[in-house]
């Protein structure tokens, strides 16, 4: 099938994203047997918003407070030398830290895997979690590193020429995942 450069498909809408996050929250509780030692870490920018939403659902399900942190991986990127220096976002660890906890990294799109690699490097410097898991809204494939997600909202087979755009109400005014046609 060929598509024009301007063609765009909405893959997930607001209701889909809410349902997907509810499912991921249940999966986390199931795999972590109650999510007692779970710490959510959102990767900037949209991963942070998704982590906040996941936390709300986890609190609803477990009735327990779930610690939440934010992680900026800019300083650990492997392509720093190829782009202009970027302003940093705020990294904040939850008060209890991450030592001995089950850290669930949360991001919007899993693509090459390089962001997750950088996040793992950052975690290495910050503490020593019991285990690290990864939750993503969309897995679009094309991994360049041996990394896979533990919780996937939607597997979205794409070509390298296509774009995947995640929009969240907090930053973009609405919730949607949009697949752009070949560029």
């Amino acid at each position, binding site marked *: 099938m060929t598509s024009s450069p301007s063609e765009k498909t909405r893959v997930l809408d607001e209701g889909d994203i809410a349902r997907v996050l509810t499912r991921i929250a249940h999966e986390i509780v199931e795999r972590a047997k109650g999510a007692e030692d779970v710490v959510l870490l959102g*990767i900037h*920018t*949209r991963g942070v918003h998704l982590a906040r939403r996941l936390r709300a659902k986890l609190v609803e399900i477990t009735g327990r407070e779930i610690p939440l942190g934010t992680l*900026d991986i800019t*300083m*650990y990127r492997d392509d*720093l*030398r*190829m*782009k*202009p*220096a*970027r*302003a*940093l*976002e*705020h*990294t*904040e660890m939850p008060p209890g830290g991450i030592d001995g906890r089950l850290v669930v990294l949360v*991001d*919007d*799109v*899993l*693509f*090459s895997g*390089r*962001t997750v690699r950088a996040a793992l*490097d950052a975690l290495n*410097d*910050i*503490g020593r979690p019991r285990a690290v898991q990864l939750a993503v809204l969309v897995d*679009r494939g094309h991994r360049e590193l041996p990394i896979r997600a533990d919780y996937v909202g939607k597997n979205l087979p794409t070509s390298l020429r296509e*774009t*995947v*755009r*995640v929009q969240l109400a907090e*930053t973009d005014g609405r919730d949607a995942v949009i697949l752009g046609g070949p560029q």
Partner: protein
Amino acid sequence: MNRNLVSAAELSRDDALLILDTAEEMAALSDRPIKKLPTLRGRTVVNLFFEDSTRTRTSFEVAEKRLSADVINFSAKGSSVSKGESLKDTALTLQAMGADAVVIRHSASGAPQRLAESDWLHGSVINAGDGTHEHPTQALLDAFTLRRHLNAGAGNDLAGRRVAVVGDILHSRVARSNVHLLHTLGAEVTLVSPPTLLPIGVENWPCSVSYDLDAVLPKSDAVMMLRVQRERMNAAFFPTEREYSRRYGLDGLRMAALPEHAVVLHPGPMVRGMEITAEVADSPRCTAVEQVANGVSVRMAVLYLLLGGAEPATSPATSTTKENAQ
């Protein structure tokens, strides 16, 4: 941002806030068990010090090492410079050695500017104090300290805050850099000094001038005390140390005249009993020690923003998507 940091006067408000906000993130690193980032791995930074300085050089060195840069300390004493080598030849040597950045302190005002404008070096030039001209990273760390106490929060400036800079303005590169940067950030600066210790042309600086410390203190949100440079005491800038101390020194009584929220800054080294009494220096309102820690964070921010990417940072954060924007 420019490729170099030579003067605080050339920093725009956006550049200055970008540095302060980045420094705030760098400061969080000091609470971690591993105080190191891989950001400048493989980059070489040369600390080129033609003038003695332990405090500033060590601060830069700690900042460079925390960012994993390779650090070379090059001091003029005992080096080829003392044998008569020119700044140009030193620079060409460093270039040949692959320096990605040079942090330079020089007794001659304008030496970093000369280096930055030349084609002797391809790396960034960071001014660590030149003659009586500028000391931009000191001004940035002072502004960072002030913001934390007076208007904490990312993106905030110092609009409407009143800062008194007291002491030897004539010989102080710290004062000059501070006046420009604080003005850029919206603060109102008042220089307080004996007339003999004010530079020619001070009326063109973006600040006001007073000879009366007691009149300025009650309306100041912060007081920055400068070191009285004893080595220049014999030049008859004022009659006696005692008289200077009485008129321009900060003691407990004067500190009490400050508003409750006001802080006292000192770039160090402090001459206790001269420009500042031990009582003030040791009080919780004096930020001198905090300024040292902030210096490392600010210098890390400058090094990251100038050297971290393929080119220096251009603007505050844009919320680009990460992986799917490749």
